[in-house]
């Protein structure tokens, strides 16, 4: 319902599914045993087809005819999908650009719901004893849609491209760890790190690490690679009418879907029309009216109904949830007791429940969201609502005086703090309500909180990102693993500044623990060490958890087989299909203008 949902609000809003996601298990078609069986039958079916037609000339229609089973999904049709925000480019560092990139580009590995990864372009991997060299074995049959082979050479080229400015977010993840790539042979590439990095593979499952054709990157303009990147994925960009829709067309050669895809071979759909529908009422209305087959970002007021009427999925984003980061370098929050007091001072759980009408989970942790592998639920629960405790802590810290309005005073200074946040970019209108509730509730403990919503331009220009510009700042950062703690809590130094450390926390102990976690040799040790880091952070209280970033998908019964991929929660259309031939035939197909162009 927010009028201008700021199309370029670079919300880092990945979305995944493993950890949580489903609100009701039955609401997810793909979890139903029936659907699973069908998936397996299908996989077997296409394997048979492959061996039968090794010449590889069988088109999708022939395949359907060959397998001929009743469970074979309907082929063809253009699916209408309604999406909130328009990306600037198909591939980029913004989460919106990841959703589109995922349709066109393949990754080395694919994330699964339990936080592990499965083969995709890389079929096998091995890490050296010192954890500094990852050897990836690649499929030998993959080519980009411009004909360039996707081989070791191409992978090495892409690593250097991401790190040298091709993708700022990819660089934020691997910066300080990536050293160089070495081509061993056509199907083998070595990635050399400068320091061990346990969540390496999980990191690569995000679409910031989508593989593009080196030929295209080298020979085409920035604009061409922005609007029509060349990948090896299940779809290619057919047309992009800015402000209206992006059309994706099936890649007929596609035969290298990730291991956790629901089927192998080309997509069932002829294509997708990815409509940009910014207004919530219109987006949900277009699904009700049957204009859309599926929509993302179901408005909070419609979620209860959508659960009943549609195949509804909610994805809880892993990484840093939406939290208030407290400035530990300057001002009132340099005192740990005051930070702890504010953490105890309000009933955050009731607040989130009411602000979001119960549609978005409360997140007690200020550091990791509950869907992040390695999340420690006990460490997250250290600051329940306890006004008495908050008052004790503030009394102990010397904030004993009271002004007329109830604000605490110490040495003539009021307990007055400023919290800044990007409204409608980082924080949704519902989130804004939650922050206002928080402000109101904190008065009881004697906090006078000034809220300062920021325009997109103020927010992103860095004017409110310095230690002298705020006491608290609201933000989130999506990541499929707990390694996000290293991005958010690595102390900033002269040689290696870290602007992502928005609490300005400079704590050697926490930093060391995080480094140990990143370098731990086994998964169990990684988890245990990250738990320790969460307890240490919790004690220091540099951040206060509010709610999880979520992504939703509602699908009509005309189509089936859509899912949200677990690394970032983007919708996957490769396995989607119309549920009947009538439904397919009533779909519009690609826009007429294009059809004419094609002749």
């Amino acid at each position, binding site marked *: 319902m927010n009028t201008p949902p700021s199309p370029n609000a*670079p919300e880092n809003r990945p979305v995944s599914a493993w950890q949580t996601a489903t609100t009701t298990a039955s609401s997810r078609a793909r979890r139903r045993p029936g659907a699973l069986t069908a998936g397996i039958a299908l996989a077997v079916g296409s394997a048979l087809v492959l061996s039968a037609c090794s010449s590889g000339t069988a088109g999708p229609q022939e395949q359907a005819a060959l397998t001929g089973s009743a469970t074979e999904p309907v082929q063809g049709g253009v699916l209408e999908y309604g999406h909130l925000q328009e990306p600037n480019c198909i591939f980029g560092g913004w989460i919106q650009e990841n959703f589109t990139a995922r349709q066109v580009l393949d990754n080395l590995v694919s994330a699964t719901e339990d936080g592990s990864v499965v083969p995709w372009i890389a079929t096998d991997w091995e890490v050296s004893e010192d954890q500094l060299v990852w050897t990836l074995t690649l499929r030998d049959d993959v080519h980009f849609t411009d004909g360039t082979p996707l081989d070791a050479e191409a992978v090495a080229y892409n690593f250097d491209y991401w790190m040298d400015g091709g993708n700022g977010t990819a660089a934020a993840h691997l910066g300080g760890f990536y050293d160089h790539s070495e081509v061993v042979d056509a199907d083998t590439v070595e990635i050399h790190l400068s320091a061990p990095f346990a969540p390496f593979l999980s990191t690569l499952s995000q679409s910031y690490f989508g593989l593009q054709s080196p030929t295209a990157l080298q020979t085409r303009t920035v*604009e061409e690679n*922005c609007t029509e990147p060349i990948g090896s994925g299940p779809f290619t960009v057919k047309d992009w009418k800015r402000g209206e*829709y992006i059309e994706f067309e099936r890649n007929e050669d596609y035969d290298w879907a990730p291991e956790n895809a629901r089927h192998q071979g080309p997509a069932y759909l002829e294509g997708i029309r990815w409509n940009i529908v910014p207004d919530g009422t219109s987006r949900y209305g277009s699904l*009700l009216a049957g204009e859309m087959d599926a929509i993302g970002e179901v408005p909070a007021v419609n979620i209860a109904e959508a659960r009943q009427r549609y195949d509804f999925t909610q994805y809880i984003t892993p990484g840093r949830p939406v939290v208030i980061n407290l400035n530990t370098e300057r001002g009132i929050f340099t005192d740990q007791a005051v930070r702890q007091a504010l953490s105890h001072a309000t009933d955050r759980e009731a607040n989130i429940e009411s602000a979001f009408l119960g549609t978005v989970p409360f997140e007690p942790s200020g550091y990791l969201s509950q869907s992040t592998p390695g999340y420690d639920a006990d460490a997250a629960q250290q600051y329940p609502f306890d006004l008495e405790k908050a008052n004790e802590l503030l009394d102990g810290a010397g904030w004993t005086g009271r002004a007329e309005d109830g604000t605490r005073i110490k040495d003539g200074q009021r307990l007055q703090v400023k919290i800044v946040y990007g409204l409608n970019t980082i924080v949704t209108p519902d989130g804004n309500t939650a922050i206002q509730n928080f402000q109101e509730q904190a008065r009881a403990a004697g906090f006078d909180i000034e809220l300062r919503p920021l325009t997109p331009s103020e927010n992103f220009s860095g004017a409110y*990102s310095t230690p002298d510009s705020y006491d608290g700042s609201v933000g989130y950062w999506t990541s499929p693993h707990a390694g996000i703690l290293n991005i958010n809590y690595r102390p900033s130094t002269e040689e290696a500044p870290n602007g992502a450390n*928005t609490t300005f926390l400079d704590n050697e102990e926490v930093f060391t623990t995080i480094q140990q976690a990143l370098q731990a040799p086994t998964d169990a040790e990684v988890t245990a060490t990250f738990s320790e880091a969460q307890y240490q952070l919790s004690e220091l209280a540099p951040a206060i958890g509010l709610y999880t970033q979520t992504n939703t998908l509602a699908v009509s019964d005309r189509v089936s087989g859509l899912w949200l991929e677990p690394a970032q929660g983007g919708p996957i259309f490769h396995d989607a299909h119309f549920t009947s031939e009538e439904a397919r035939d009533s779909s519009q197909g690609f826009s007429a203008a294009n059809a004419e162009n094609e002749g």
Partner: protein
Amino acid sequence: MSVTTETLTTAPAQPSSPEPVRRGRPVTSTAALIGKKVLGALFVIWAAASITFLIQSLLPGDRATLLLNQQTGQVQERSAEELAPINEQFGFDDPLLVQYVTFLGGLLRGDLGISYTLYQPVTTVIGDQIVPTLVLTFTALAVAWALAIVLLLLTARRAPWVSRIFSGLESAAAALPQYWLGIILLVVFSLWLGLFPVVSGSGTAGLVLPALTLGIPLAGFLAQVMRAEFERTMDEPFVLTARARGMSDGGVRLRHVLRHSLLPGLSLTGWAVGAQFSAAVIAENVFARPGLGRVLVTAVNGRDLPVVCGVVMLVALVYVITNLIVDTAYILVDPRLKEAA
């Protein structure tokens, strides 16, 4: 007659049109007049571009940081090392005067630059979006005029309660928030009745509701300013004369009175065209239409200077052209103005 003349010449008192009609000295030739108009138009466009450039350049916050943060979806400080390539690429480090001269030089060559965030030439960005915006703006304008004129002819100076009710309705229409109106139209006509698509896109059927969303409030404004003039003119002696000649009431209203009341409506139109451009973003969002409104909002949020300047100059140009047309229309509506000139 003196009363009418006075009314007519004072009516078009809108600020944007430099009163083309009544000058003390005779205008030398049509060519000189056109030359003056063109120079004036160029000045307006130059001024619009320069002011936009200055504001966008001088707003607090660092532009390179903004671009980098937007590319990665983060809100944070950036190191000089990170910012150097961006400053280098876009010349943010150059003295402001140098940046301005570069910018103006580009304008003179017809080069509006390349969008910082879309990597497309600004002319392409605008070219892709201008048609739906113009179509929406002018359809809304036509809808507004049609509604206003029908309302006036049927209801002005009728039984007092009729006039009062419709005058009240016009005020209410003029005060309608476009966002609210758009949602109501969407829910009623698209969702309940299923008469129009929810997602309008750029098709013809999808034009109706957005045009009504913008047109209905404007119709309220237009009818209000014209109603006063219409009702006053109905009291003029020449109306009585016309009636005395045996002319029907409808004929009097349509052929004599309406003409008088058009002038304030025309003045308002000069302003409305520009205002519709900015209101278009609301209709574009609600009905998921492409258009310049959304491009402009996105560009302002991202401080995508080339795109902002391009759109602002275009809007200035549309203003200038519309006001030229309005000036001409005055003369057509009231030929006496031509003689005066």
